């Protein structure tokens, strides 16, 4: 416990100091925080519950659109804003901007949660690959449909309110960094406390054998929906922040980007190790570094590399980094290993 406390304190201090240590990477660090949030919350129902979803992008995109729409709509007519391309006609004062952002983020978190609760009963009844394909369809459908709605910019996109002039040029980066870092800390605390309760055991029981769990008297549907709603809450929040950070929302390329962000979440969680607390965090960090390196040095080939990376990770590395560590050093994970077993395994190899 004591050792853990020092570790957490060190990470927290590092996180708070990071924008001042690496001022050039503020945006990248904020994106990293958002990615970690997405991977960690995907892991709640993907890793712990065994429901592999490509559809969390739905909540992410929904949160993004809602946050920006609320932020604009609270003070200005939304339709005129999207028509004029935003920033030219109307200008947010700093108070309006932060007020709008606060309300927008609350809406962005709450509405996806409610949506997840409403559709959860129908969607979560599907098993295995039907669930995966259905959620993939949901994400893409949301993207296609939102691309046809005029009031949120249709095909031409939606410009989010630009950051107001508050004196310092660095303010925008710092604001978004601390916002996303705070969300990350909140997510981590929430997920960690969830994982130490009976709820996590129920999720694991659903993953291992849903029918048996039901036979043992667990109301599986209720817990599945709750698990999905928790994911949706943080995905919506992350989407709202990301919308402000990117500054421009496009229906299929930024918000409901099922082919990119929707797969990234899954990939990050798998790379780090499904069903562990630290796996998605490590996976997201490594993935983001790899991705940015590739995006910078091999521009144009990034998606080819991404495709190859997915195939390689899935085929050769399905247990992820944490799974690999666990196999190598089981004692560190609190597992008791019989000496005979290990010898037998070595001989087998």
């Amino acid at each position, binding site marked *: 416990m004591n050792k853990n406390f020092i570790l957490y304190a060190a990470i927290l201090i590092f996180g708070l100091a990071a924008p001042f240590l690496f001022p050039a990477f503020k945006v990248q660090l904020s994106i990293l925080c958002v990615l970690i949030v997405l991977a960690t919350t995907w892991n709640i129902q993907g890793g712990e519950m065994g429901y592999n979803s490509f559809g969390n992008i739905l909540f992410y995109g929904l949160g993004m659109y809602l946050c920006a729409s609320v932020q604009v709509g609270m003070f200005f007519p939304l339709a005129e804003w999207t028509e004029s391309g935003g920033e030219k006609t109307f200008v947010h004062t700093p108070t309006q901007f932060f007020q709008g952002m606060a309300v927008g983020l609350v809406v962005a978190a709450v509405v996806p949660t409610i949506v997840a609760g409403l559709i959860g009963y129908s969607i979560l009844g*599907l098993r295995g690959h039907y669930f995966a394909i259905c959620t993939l369809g949901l994400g893409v459908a949301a993207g296609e449909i939102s691309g046809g709605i005029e009031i949120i910019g249709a095909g031409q996109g939606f410009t989010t309110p630009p950051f107001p002039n508050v004196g310092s040029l660095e303010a925008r980066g710092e604001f978004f960094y601390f916002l996303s870092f705070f969300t990350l800390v909140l997510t981590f605390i929430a997920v960690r406390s969830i994982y130490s309760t009976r709820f996590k055991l129920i999720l694991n029981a659903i993953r291992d054998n849903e029918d048996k769990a039901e036979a043992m008297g667990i109301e599986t549907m209720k817990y599945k929906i709750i698990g999905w709603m928790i994911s949706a809450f943080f995905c919506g929040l992350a989407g709202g922040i990301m919308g402000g950070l990117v500054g421009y929302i496009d229906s299929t390329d930024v918000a409901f980007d099922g082919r990119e962000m929707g797969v990234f979440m899954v990939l990050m969680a798998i790379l780090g190790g499904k069903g562990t607390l630290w796996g998605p965090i490590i996976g997201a960090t490594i993935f983001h570094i790899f991705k940015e390196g590739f995006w910078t040095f091999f521009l144009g080939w990034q998606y080819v590399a991404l*495709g190859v*990376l997915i195939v390689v990770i899935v*085929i050769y590395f399905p247990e992820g980094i944490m799974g690999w560590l666990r196999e190598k050093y089981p004692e560190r994970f609190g597992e008791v290993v019989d000496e005979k077993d290990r010898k037998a395994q070595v001989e087998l190899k």
Partner: protein
Amino acid sequence: MDFLVFQYPMITLQACLDGILLGVLFALIAYGMALQWGVMNIINIAQGDLVILGGYIAYFMYLYGIHPAWGVIVAPVIMYFVGIAIYKLVINKVVDRDLFISILATFGISILFMQLMNFAFGADVVLANSGYGTTMLFDNNVVLPNSKIFSAFISIVFAVCLVIYMKKSKLGRAIRATAQNARAAKILGVNTEKVYAATFGINAALCGVAGALISITFTIHPYMGLPYTIRSFMIVIVAGLGNLPGVAMSGMGLGVFEEFADYILGTEFRIGSVFLLLVLILVYRRFKLSRKREYLK
């Protein structure tokens, strides 16, 4: 919203005929999907990208002055080997594993293909002009491009040939045996590894034919693959595995649905309505199945 559809019967007829001709093509792709799903238990997200790749083969023949209809012969031959290569490199490592692994792996292949095609052929919407002209029916009220009729005809020819091949040939029987019970087939001397490779190759070849036909009748674009995958998946779940008349019927049904969605909701919602239909079908299926489970209790 455009409700002219209901006021003018000719528009309805036009949409129905268009949809049926389109649906035959979908059914051909879905047949390949059903084949590999039934035999190898793999859902191939890259199905649509194989279709588009086949389309580009026909398009390139058109660019070099060969009539694109010959793509119907050339594309499947090339795509067969592409399919075998994909099987050897990736699919044979995920065949026996969790279905989600195979979905994710083929998703990776799909992204890879999409980008490679984008590099090689550019991000423009292209079509191979067949120069077949159009057929007018019912006092010129219904216009059918001959290329659509041609593509539906070729699809049916290929599907019938394949069905006969699966029934009569040695490989076809081996494939069907493997689909029924892979272990038993192995015991009886079927080389399942070869059967799997051939199945994936045949699936890719079917995609190649469909792609060549699509490049003649419609347009192709590197990023248009995913909707074809979803359509074929949807057709297979509605029809069920190994139900060929069902695949044909639900393919045509989907085609008609799409044409009507196009007329009524507008073209921008066409793809969205396909994906929404998928979600609705799956949800319907879930409630139907859960009722069946309750009866068992």
